[in-house]
């Protein structure tokens, strides 16, 4: 039997109120991935974006999530502690922005890269703490790991 497989996404509930994201704290903790109609990528911390190729997203996202600027994440290893990058993994938010003309294929690939960045970090902690990859852990241990690196991938309305 063919089993359906795919990238699982949880959508936010419908609201008419647009979110405001203009304070300085949020700026530091927001990592923007912008895909335009020509499928070009502009990636980076808010206010510090760079043009990137698809395979550069993953390392950039990993170092952003794992930055641990305020040092409150005790399990994080290899953090840069850059004062301009994210404070800790539970505050780090990744925001995907796309155009109406962006192709679905590149969008899925970008999302896949961002999920892969989280998988990389979670696997790292899982192996260190429990000696197995994240997906092989029992559910209660997965929760512990997921609490260290919670997934925040938000999506803006198309430009």
């Amino acid at each position, binding site marked *: 039997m063919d089993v*359906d497989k*795919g*990238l*699982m996404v949880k*959508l*936010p509930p419908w609201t008419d109120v647009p979110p405001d994201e203009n304070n300085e704290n949020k700026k530091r903790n927001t990592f923007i991935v912008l895909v335009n109609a020509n499928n070009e990528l502009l990636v980076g911390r808010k206010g510090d974006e760079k043009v990137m190729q698809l395979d550069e997203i993953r390392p950039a996202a990993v170092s952003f999530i794992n930055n641990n600027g305020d040092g409150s994440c005790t399990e994080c290893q290899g953090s840069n502690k850059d004062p301009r990058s994210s404070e800790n993994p539970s505050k780090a938010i990744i925001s995907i922005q796309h155009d*109406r*003309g962006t192709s*679905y294929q590149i969008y899925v690939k970008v999302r896949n890269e961002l999920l892969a960045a989280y998988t990389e970090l979670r696997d790292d902690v899982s192996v260190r703490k429990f000696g197995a990859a994240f997906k092989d852990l029992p559910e209660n241990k997965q929760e512990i790991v997921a609490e260290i690196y919670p997934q925040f991938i938000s999506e803006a309305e*198309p430009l």
Partner: protein
Amino acid sequence: MAQIRKKKSKETPPVSTASLPDIVFMLLFFFMVTTTMREVTLLVNVKKPTATEIQKLDRKDLTTYIYLGSPKDTVNYGTEPRIQLDDQLASLGDVQAFVILKREEIDPTEQPKFTVSIKADNDVKMGLVSDLKEELRKAQALKICYSTNPAGDKPEDLYKIY
């Protein structure tokens, strides 16, 4: 010398039917193995993207599929990507009612696990997909799945854009 000679019957012997059950069972099993349940007739072209971070959708009964792609019947429907719900092409306005109806069909205790799987073509533009997502959000169907094929081991599969 006297010879004992078997008396040969002149008619041809009847065909042995001893192997008949074997043949019947063989055919039966053959069809059982090769038959798949009919799901929907695709009216749109769907070539799914590839990804690595995929999860299985193991409960088919809790999943509803929405297909996005350019119509196969270009004479009547043109080439602009369309939405297919069940066996027919639909417009964006039909999505909410369709999803709500599908959710009502499943057991109330399992309704929170209701998932909408979006099977969209590589070349569909995100404008259509985000309109669809907006409709799903309005219909309170918040668990969605972008259906993809697993990527091969080669990194080219993942980073190449066709």
